[in-house]
């Protein structure tokens, strides 16, 4: 057991940290007050420097990939990391990115900015390279660019991968992203309750606030470690369990984060929604908490 990153992972995370704290990663509201802010500059920098290929590097591996997905999800801006980092190298390394993922036929995140799409159907995995005109953007409350694709001009290509394995890779990616998103929101709320004073003291000095945030942090960190372990082991039960745990935790955490931000958290001038409305979509993914926890139980003890 070693819960510290190895030297290569540490060096990798240090460089990632520089980018995650650089100007392309910083919060700024969208000129049209969109709920999300896609950062093509950060996405491109990460891409050009090979970050999205880390999971395939022997000294970095899927754990580094999951750590990167978490760190980027903490940002108020969006890049497409989960699919590119944890799915693409295993399923279709040659797909152009950004890569959107569809698990059903409806609208899906990232499609309007994606150059390819992976479709993870229960009976098979397929992929398509996207052309201009393949995707219709869709308005969504969730803080991602949503879009819908009919039949892509280039057509769907079958991907030679086991559909269950592919969905489990996606579960790990979603768990890591959800842990990161909630951590990002928690960080913003912590900053707020440390400085905002009411009744002559910081809000964060009230125990009612402290205990709920401390509980949130225990749940997020527990889930983050479970996601990292699932990334390393590739175990199917671990994957469903990590995602189910994060999804089950998210409901209460999202509620608390908004409560403690007060009215400011309901505006588009504060980024809280960037995290909570990604969390709200992520907690519904692949059937949501009960489906994933139930699957984890079936995989652990047999149906």
């Amino acid at each position: 057991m070693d819960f510290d990153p190895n030297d290569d992972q540490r060096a990798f995370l240090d460089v990632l940290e520089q980018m995650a704290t650089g100007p392309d990663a910083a919060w700024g509201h969208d000129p049209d007050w969109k709920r999300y802010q896609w950062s093509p500059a950060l996405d491109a920098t990460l891409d050009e420097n090979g970050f999205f290929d880390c999971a395939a590097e022997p000294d970095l591996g899927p754990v580094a990939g999951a750590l990167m997905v978490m760190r980027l999800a903490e940002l108020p801006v969006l890049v497409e990391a989960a699919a590119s980092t944890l799915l693409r190298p295993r399923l279709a390394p040659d797909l152009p990115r950004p890569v959107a993922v569809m698990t059903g036929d409806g609208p899906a995140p990232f499609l309007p900015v994606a150059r390819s799409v992976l479709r993870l159907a229960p009976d098979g995995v397929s992929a398509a390279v996207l052309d201009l005109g393949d995707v219709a953007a869709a308005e969504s409350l969730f803080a991602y660019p949503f879009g819908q694709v009919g039949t892509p001009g280039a057509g769907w290509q079958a991907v030679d991968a086991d559909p269950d394995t592919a969905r489990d890779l996606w579960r790990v990616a979603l768990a890591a992203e959800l842990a990161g998103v909630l951590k990002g929101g928690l960080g913003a709320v912590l900053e707020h309750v440390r400085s905002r004073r009411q009744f002559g003291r910081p809000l964060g000095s009230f125990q009612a606030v402290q205990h709920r945030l401390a509980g949130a942090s225990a749940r997020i960190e527990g889930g983050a470690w479970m996601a990292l372990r699932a990334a390393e082991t590739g175990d199917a039960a671990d994957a469903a369990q990590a995602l189910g745990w994060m999804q089950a935790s998210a409901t209460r955490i999202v509620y608390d984060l908004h409560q403690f931000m007060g009215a400011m958290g309901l505006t588009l001038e504060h980024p809280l929604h960037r995290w909570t409305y990604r969390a709200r979509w992520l907690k519904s993914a692949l059937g949501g908490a009960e489906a994933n926890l139930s699957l984890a139980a079936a995989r652990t003890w047999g149906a």
Partner: protein
Amino acid sequence: MDFNWTDDERRFRDRVRAFLHRELPSDWAEVARHGPGSAEQTAFSRDFCPRLAAEGLLVPHWPAEWGGQGRPTWEHFILGEEMWAAGEPRGAQYMNVNWIGPTLMRYGSAEQQARYIPAMAAGNAIWCQGFSEPEAGSDLASLRTKAVPDGGGYVIDGQKIWTSYAGLAETCFLLARVPGAGDGKAAIAIFLVPMDTPGIEVRSIPSLIGHGDIHEVFLTGVRVPASARLGAEGEGWSIISYALANERVGIPRYELSSRTLSRMAARLKDEGRFDDPVIRARAGSAAAACEAARMLTYRAVSMRAKGQPAGPEANIARVAVVEADHAVSEFGMDFLPGAYTAGGGNGGADDAAILAHHERAIVAGIAAGAAEIQLDLVARRHLDLPRGAA
């Protein structure tokens, strides 16, 4: 990062399991049904711990000088997981192994060390921990039991409560306040008090966790020599902090919870009920709570293994451990209520194991400090939130 056990660690765990398999009697589930502080388990531990010691498995992490082998932190931890999951056949003696022994090694006089440590290493010493009082629970530093200097020794008066193992212990690790030595924490001193000293009266408290587990201890004019004091008069609080730092991550409760949950799931499968999606989702949720607790605990142990102080990481782990214990216990009560009523279960070892788990789980958020105190510490140390108003 690496979430796997090394071959050595695996072999060590196998060795502990093989020992338990060999040495625990066939009616162990019934014995373990009583709490770790019961007369049954205490009597059992007096026989079991010397065998564990002979096998080199009682204090393997202690230095050789004190009968140990200087084995690594992780092995000590694996030992704790296996013992707790087996129903803690060491009874009260797990405290000696984890913190009383190490604290005496560091702070004890030569005389105290010679008197107490070899017996602990041999597996034949029952101690109790006299901290809590009727008016001093979570706010331990407000304890009132007095130790008044008198003729080169002390006279101790006061009352302790919730004291586990007190009915059968030979020695008490007792906290008392020395008047005149300042207020608050500075006045607290530690005394190693033989329980047969005149003036000590022990009364068992009937409880939800089995008889003989928790007690009141009345101390009336209890005379002890100065040599019974551990460390200096003003040093008590820092010694306790050291002692408790050794216990930081606490009992690896998730290990028993996780195994009990597996028994419950197997039982539900036997009854043809495990394909119920509600039951399965709840089982999955309880299992996930156990794994979250496990990962957070390992995180803290991993730091300790590297000689880094695990502060807030240990507090977070304890919060998660409480949640996991309760998740499993409530799962059992919701879906296997028969196991908690005579005639309603399957009449086998499973019933005893499920009952025993429940009684251990309900104390998780209170014994060894309330969960809310841990949440306070997480908020302050980990989330950097300002201290609350007094």
